[in-house]
């Protein structure tokens, strides 16, 4: 059973996609099947983490074909960590957003859950595959299902946002495929480990350089790095509430994973020095941080503010990645986790506020703390983590990122990482101030439903961030010992 772990992890999330059409008679079935599948895959990914802590990296060769010839899937420290993130966060989001989904999907929830599960499955595939072309396939599946999820609400804005995402996403994926083609031409392989071996042995060439640049460009578009971010804010804002809570915390994070996998693992440091692609990234990342924050500050819609905040945070992670040292990389991983958890919580709270109070814009959040005190409190906690206030997880990721910057002697970048925290504070406190201190309506919202899952999810996100903060030093050591071994 251990040998098939990567596939089991994948299949447990994939099977519900096929089972759902067979149980149409029972209305809750799609929801319950999805939850069960994700819970199972979360358990498998945690089990993988345990195995990796004991030093067992998991490989799976499809059809029994050995590595360079067949397709390999792999669960090492990095992919197991992100797979755990994807499966747990998506489990909780799917679990918590069923109410919103039922309200928003007027034509039935069956297609929604099928597409959502397919989306999550392909994200898991991106994380586990050790083959560059296989990666492309999963990126495409994730994108196609992503377009569908965004448009699923059927609103005009949603369709428009989805259309924009289709155009830009396709361009990004094409760039990536083209880049892989160049690398294949230079190395003759698509397997990641094999590619690493060959690239270190051949002299620097323009073909490889071109391939790397195209991949970089493609992935930057897919992850929404400024100035290629234009698809992202509308997609997050106009997607149905349930879908945006699912897409926002995960899909860009997984693209960042793909980026880290390619530019941190496949192309290893000595080779990377021959190709100055990463340093060119730094300016973009800094621009993303500044522009994302300023734009986030100017938004009046909560969801749009959160979307632009993602643009800025993506820049932050890419900036820290560009320092190319273990401490900074650990900071990036930690930040991916913390950002994902806090965005999941924040989007669920945004959805709750929208559905129960009809609140979407800054003005409508006046007196929110009076009407939904618990949600406001959790919003505050998740927001503080985003800013990087101790003892939440976001502080420790900032700590390691700045530490990494100083280790590589990038003093200006270190200052920018810190400055980005201050900018984040500006746009988060703009909302907090309205929620807690502006006067206005004080009529409390109606009674809670008996099982209030969104409430539970936002509470879990806030407490999770606290737990991440307390365990951050342990995660750091785990990542040094089990993720950054090569």
């Amino acid at each position, binding site marked *: 059973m251990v040998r098939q772990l990567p596939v089991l992890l994948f299949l447990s999330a994939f099977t519900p996609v096929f089972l759902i059409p067979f149980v149409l008679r029972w209305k809750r079935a799609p929801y319950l099947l999805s939850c069960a599948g994700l819970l199972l895959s979360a358990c498998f990914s945690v089990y993988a983490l345990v195995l990796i802590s004991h030093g067992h990296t998991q490989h799976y060769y499809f059809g029994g074909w050995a590595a360079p010839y067949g397709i390999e899937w792999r669960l090492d420290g990095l992919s197991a960590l992100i797979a755990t993130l994807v499966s747990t966060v998506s489990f909780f989001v799917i679990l918590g957003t069923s109410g919103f989904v039922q309200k928003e999907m007027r034509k039935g929830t069956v297609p929604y859950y099928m597409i959502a599960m397919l989306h999550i499955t392909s994200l898991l595939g991106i994380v586990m595959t050790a083959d560059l072309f296989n990666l492309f396939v999963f990126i495409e599946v994730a994108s196609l299902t992503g377009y569908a999820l965004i448009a699923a609400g059927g609103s005009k804005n949603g369709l428009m946002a989805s259309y924009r995402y289709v155009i830009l996403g396709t361009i990004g994926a094409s760039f990536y495929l083209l880049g892989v083609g160049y690398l294949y031409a230079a190395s003759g392989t698509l397997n990641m480990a094999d590619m690493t071996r060959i690239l270190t042995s051949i002299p620097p060439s323009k073909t490889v350089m071109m391939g790397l640049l195209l991949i970089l460009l493609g992935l930057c578009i897919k992850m929404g790095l400024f100035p290629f971010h234009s698809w992202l804010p509308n997609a997050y804002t106009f997607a149905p509430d349930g879908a945006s809570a699912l897409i926002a915390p995960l899909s860009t994070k997984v693209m960042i994973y793909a980026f880290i996998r390619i530019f941190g693992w496949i192309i290893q440091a000595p080779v990377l020095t021959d190709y100055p692609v990463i340093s060119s990234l730094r300016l973009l990342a800094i621009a993303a941080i500044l522009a994302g924050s300023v734009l986030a500050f100017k938004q009046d819609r909560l969801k749009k503010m959160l979307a632009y905040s993602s643009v800025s945070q993506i820049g932050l992670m890419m900036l820290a990645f560009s320092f190319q040292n273990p401490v900074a990389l650990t900071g990036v991983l930690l930040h991916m986790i913390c950002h994902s958890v806090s965005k999941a919580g924040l989007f669920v709270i945004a959805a709750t506020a929208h559905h129960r109070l009809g609140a979407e814009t800054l003005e409508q959040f006046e007196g929110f703390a009076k009407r939904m005190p618990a949600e406001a409190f959790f919003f505050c906690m998740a927001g503080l983590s985003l800013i990087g206030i101790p003892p939440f997880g976001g502080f420790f990721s900032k700590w390691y990122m700045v530490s990494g910057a100083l280790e590589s002697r990038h003093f200006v970048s270190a200052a920018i990482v810190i400055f980005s925290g201050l900018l984040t504070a500006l746009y988060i406190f703009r909302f907090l101030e309205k929620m807690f201190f502006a006067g206005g309506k004080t009529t409390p919202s109606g009674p809670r439903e008996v099982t209030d899952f969104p409430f539970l999810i936002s509470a879990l996100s806030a407490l999770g961030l606290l737990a991440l903060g307390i365990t951050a030093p342990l995660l*750091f050591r785990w990542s040094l010992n089990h993720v950054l071994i090569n």
Partner: protein
Amino acid sequence: MEIVSVKPLLALLISAAASVLILFSGKRPNLREFWTVTAALVKTALVLSLYPWIRSGHTVVWKLGEIFPDTGMFLRVDALGFTFAAVASALWILTSVYSIGYMRSLKEKDQTRYFFSFALSLSATLGIAFAGDLLTFFIFFEILAVVTYPLVTHKQTDEAIKAGRKYLVYSLSAGGLLLLAILWTYHATGNLNFTPGGFLSGLKDSRMIFIIFFLFIYGCGVKAALFPLHAWLPSAMVAPTPVSALLHAVAVVKAGVFGILRITGFVFGPSVLKETGLGDALGMIAGFTILGASFMALAQENLKRRLAYSTISQLSYIILGSALASQTAYTGAVLHLGNHAMMKIALFFAAGAIYCRTHCENISDLKGLGYRMPFTFTAFTIGAVGLSGFPLFSGFISKWMLCMGAIDSHHGAALAIYLSSALLNLLYLLPIVIIGFSRSAKHEAVEEKPWTLWVPPIIAAAAVLAFGSVPAWIQIQKGLADLAAASVFMGGMP
């Protein structure tokens, strides 16, 4: 010797635990206030139970975790930290009782949020006092900044919200620079632990030392209200008076000053300060702040704002004392940390009681109140006279030590600043007393009640007298300050 004990952690966490209980008993005010008072009492008892160990020269340690391989996070209680913790937690008892009277008399809204934030900020303060390394210090420093924000903004008026914004911008930017300074220090030395006498003496790059020092000073200077970073403090006086009393006279601003004492004594060390001339630079800023703020205080008509400027000036007494790099001055600085807290809290309590009964905020409106509110004004008078440094009041001892330190280190200018500022103190505080005790029929109907509003200031004033004239009490306080200064200047041996 190091004693391993969980007591510091418990003392720290008790008010955080209380804050959760407070949050859940928001609908039953009496139960809610019971949690506050109980937590304050238990916290103080826990802190004071460390005294025998500290007095005999030990430090109490509790390990929290490892942030980098070989670099830990600690709670370490030494004489300096103990002094600050004892002052903050003992005065929290007074403030809790006073808060109950104040908030209920004024029928303030959102009292649950108020008591919740208050309890959390006390946890953060103890964390700062007990932090054994720069990271732990920073974590609680940031928490303190965030949890005191709702207190500043408590009244929810436009003015309060603006003051809150100002406070946040100042303190979060300071936090950012402090973080940079701390990580830079780590990368230059591989060390984060507070070491008596400092651990930066190995660094040769003087330009780097210079930059790190001023990053540190900016980081702590905002909370310590050092010129030109002080502007948030007078605006923050819009907060309810118990907040101004405990936080803006004791916990928050003292956390900044305490940070500067840590940085000058336990990160840079007196020898580095002397060699690089950084001590003199800091001293000049502090000296300017002392005089400037005193003159500003003279010009204030609003009572709380006058007290705020007085606080700014007194805080820089301590900073100047730590910058002089003399053992006597450092002792004086540690003493003044506690003494100023007692005197200022008496003054603020009195100001708040006056506001509660009469809604007067301006000094000229206080005519005749001394006869209507005798206990309150007695406390105010004792605080005012003590702050000006009269013998037999606790302020005298610390100021005496500070002046001796200035002489020791041959800083005539510092001595002159201390002496002239004592005169200015008298000039801006005594008129208030005189106005209060002048005859006027204006406030005939004012009564001095409830007891929760006048007993706390009287107790604070009694403490001012006790720590200024009872030899045994003076011994306790001075013994601790001596221990702290000796560890900095003589490598731990008193």
